[in-house]
């Protein structure tokens, strides 16, 4: 498909603007004006609409394809969430900061407050900030809170401990807060190696960042012991909420020793992933960390029953973003949560785990399963059997594309060779999973029978396999005018 710039025609106009009802201002001085009009598209509205409609048709998506992308929780995005979020489109965020402004946005503030309360309840935390704009942003916010906590206590801390199965964002977020990383290998049974962990712990460790269940889909049974050890060094326990979809109503991070937790609303709480975002990564903390929460903070005034806004607090880490975070995303998550309610969310986790274990059971004879125990919401296979025939995980992925399935996550977690990480989510029906299982088995058979056939895949898409090296070398990241 042509680029929109290649379809542009010089002088063509798109959407008309209102005609001015005020006098034209005198021109700005020449030295402030741009040398030439920016080379934006010049399209008719129809051509523009057709361009983007047809571009959209070149995507796989949850609404068109099964999308078992492990660690991303690609569940159904209920349509009512979109409608709900649109209700707040005209609300200007500064409204809340005008004199008496809180009074003008009690609905929005109340929604945020209630959302925080519900998230605190689900995770076992005492208070939640909704400011972080995505999971990684929540991690950074959380680590800033950890740093502020230690600073206030006069602790000298230098390290953050992460297992080698962790998401890359964990060490990256800790690094943005100035910490050095200690990585703990995964033991053969799939959990962080407990002995090596114990050896690594010291008074210089600021925090331990865990995903639980981890990226292998396994719940660490020693989590409480780990937390106790960490706390004995006055290290805080950080919970990466990426996999919260597995455990709602079963276990609460706060109850097993975690002090800080971020939640990915776009995973567990059904808000759409938007082709890469926006997400939302609220952070919950235990009481000891509340003084450090970022500003603004919403406070429920018991006397008036109204919501108020705290904008300053000497111990606060400051601000990690504008205002209250990705509000529109939170409206969607809130809508999802009150719609499903307590029983609904518990059922979500139960059926997410059921689906993953079903997938595991049905495919384990065909693909190598490095960790065989009961998994939680996702299961990690390896294409090592197929690799013996020269077929890589990425080849299986391209096979699946040709069959109309978005591939699972491949090559993550890094600790599993040729990893294939499948997360069906609870919203997929048995029929969909059975059809996918059949295609996966077909891939395994074809890897045996005709391994060379994979190199040409995919063949059903607008493009065949793309040359990533060339992209990195040429660094063509925009189209010159």
């Amino acid at each position, binding site marked *: 498909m042509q680029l929109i710039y290649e379809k*542009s025609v010089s002088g063509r106009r798109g959407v008309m*603007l209102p005609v*001015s009802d005020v006098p034209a201002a005198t021109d700005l001085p020449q030295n*402030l004006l*741009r040398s030439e009009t*920016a080379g*934006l598209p010049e399209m008719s509205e129809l051509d523009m*609409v057709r361009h983007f*409609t047809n571009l959209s048709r070149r*995507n796989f998506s949850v609404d068109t394809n099964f999308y078992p*992308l492990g660690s991303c929780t690609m569940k159904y995005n209920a349509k009512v969430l979109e409608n709900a979020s649109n*209700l*707040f*489109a*005209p*609300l*200007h965020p500064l*409204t*809340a900061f005008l004199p008496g402004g809180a009074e003008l946005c*009690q*609905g929005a503030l109340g929604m945020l407050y209630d959302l925080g309360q*519900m998230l605190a309840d689900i995770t*076992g935390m005492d208070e939640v900030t909704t400011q972080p*704009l995505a999971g990684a*942003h929540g991690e950074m916010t959380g680590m*800033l809170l950890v740093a502020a906590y230690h600073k206030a206590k006069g602790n000298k801390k230098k390290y953050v401990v992460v297992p080698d199965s962790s998401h890359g964002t964990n060490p*990256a977020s800790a690094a*943005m807060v100035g910490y050095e990383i200690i990585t703990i290998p995964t033991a053969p049974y799939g959990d962080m190696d407990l002995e090596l962990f114990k050896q690594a712990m010291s008074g210089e460790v600021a925090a331990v960042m865990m995903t639980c269940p981890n990226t292998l889909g*396994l719940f660490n049974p020693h*989590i409480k012991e780990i937390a106790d050890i960490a706390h004995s060094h006055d290290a805080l326990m950080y919970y990466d909420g990426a996999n919260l979809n597995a455990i709602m109503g079963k276990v609460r991070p706060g*109850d097993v020793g975690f002090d800080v937790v971020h939640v990915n609303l776009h995973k567990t709480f059904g808000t759409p992933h938007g*082709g*890469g*975002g*926006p997400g939302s990564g609220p952070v919950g903390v235990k009481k000891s960390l509340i003084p450090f929460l*970022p500003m603004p903070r919403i406070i429920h005034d018991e006397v008036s029953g109204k919501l108020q806004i705290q904008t300053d607090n000497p111990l606060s880490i400051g601000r990690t973003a*504008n*205002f209250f975070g990705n509000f*529109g995303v939170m*409206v969607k998550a809130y809508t999802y949560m*009150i719609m*499903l*309610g*307590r029983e*609904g969310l518990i059922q979500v986790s139960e*059926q997410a*785990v*059921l689906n993953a274990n*079903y997938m595991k059971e049905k495919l384990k004879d065909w693909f190598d399963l490095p960790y065989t*125990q009961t998994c939680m919401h996702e299961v990690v296979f390896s294409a090592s059997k197929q690799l013996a025939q020269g077929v890589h995980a990425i080849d299986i*992925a391209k096979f699946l594309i040709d069959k109309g399935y978005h591939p699972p996550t491949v090559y*993550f977690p890094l600790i599993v060779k040729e990893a294939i990480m499948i997360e069906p989510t609870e919203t997929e029906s*048995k029929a969909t999973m059975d059809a996918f299982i059949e295609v996966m088995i077909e891939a395994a058979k074809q890897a045996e029978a005709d391994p060379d056939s994979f190199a040409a895949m995919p063949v059903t898409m607008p*493009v065949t*396999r793309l040359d990533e090296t060339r*992209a990195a070398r*040429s660094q*063509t*990241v925009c*189209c010159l005018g």
Partner: protein
Amino acid sequence: MNTSHYCPHTPEEIQEMLAAIGVSSVEELFAPIPAALRCSTFNLPVGMSEFETYAKLQAVAADNSQNLSLFIGGGFYDHIIPAAVDHLSGRAEFYTAYTPYQPECSQGTLQALFEYQTAICRLTGLDVSNASLYDGATGLAEAALMAMRATNRTKVVVDGCVSPIARKVLATYLSNQDAELVELPPLDGLLNREELAKQLDANTAAVLVQYPNVFGAVEDFSGLADQAHAAGALLVTAVYPVALGILKSPGDLGADIAVGDGQSLGNPLSFGGPSFGFIAAKKSHIRNMPGRIVGETVDKNGKRGFVLTLQAREQHIKRHKATSNICSNQSLCALRGLIFLAAIGKQGLADLARLNRDKAEYAKARLAELPGVAVLQTAPTFNEFTISLPKPAEAVVAALLDKGIAAGMPLGQFYVGSENMLVVTVTEKRSKKEIDQLVKALEVALCN
């Protein structure tokens, strides 16, 4: 089991699946969680039907003043959004997909992001853009970190005329880094160049400025890039993308990095989010860029296609040595930005910018006629300007809120001694009638 929304299985299917797994209940699957750790669950209310839920959200929405006549901005602007933006970004293939890790089945998102990057490059006059950051404020912080990496220096000098909120975010981001942050107090609402000269030294990584600045001034930054470069520092400019319809681009100014908030490009106010941050830079800095970048390549048959590129910068490869921790960005909001720009078009953005300025100049002139009201800036302004009032701005704003007018942002909360200062924003959506009503209401409020 089938008591809830979006969980499809019938009881029979659940039994079949359990049998296949070889357990007798779903509960057994949770055996890996030690009993002692199990919670007695949480206390959320009982669920509701979609109809009841939506009705509840309508009530929540109604409990806000959403119909104010808005003369506030401060980084979030009440601009028109063509209907096509909602319709096209509402295509399920766009909004229910995720990061395009598998390029062949994600060419829609990838090409759109490539076109977005191109739009940002052309708007900013710079060479390379990423596929979006969270927002303008975190974008400014990422730009500072990027400049530190690029120069291997640790001092960041920021103009005090940069948005106070963005400066707070910047300070928070740098608070635990090996970094020194210097804020230059404004001089008559403009950059204090003398103070800046003093702060430019061998450890200065970047100078951060904004235009229009928080007071609304469009400052002449000629020579600023040379001044920064002479000290080996980079120039980072935070910009308001609608204003770039007419204003000199960061590239024209010789800036090394440009950042900004994309809300004004097709994203609703939505109480402050989601929006998106854009960042663009000279080509030499591409490997220091944070976040996703889409690049052009070819497939096996030589056909053009697009992929995520230079991923070796990113957290999922580089982990703690990544250029940033960002993973999910604001892709859909960036797409809205692109669609907005494509809908409005090349000449349209210039016209839109002029329309904003015309409205603001009209309002400025009318307000300046009021007794006791003075315009702060001697510098030209775009669609925002600062006036001083003969009484505290907070009281005046409160009085006008009662009449349904959000008259502006009082500056006192951000700058000591500015209690009588008010920043007034006028976008193309404000009619002459609304402006006249603002002037009239302000006149009345000042008399009382």
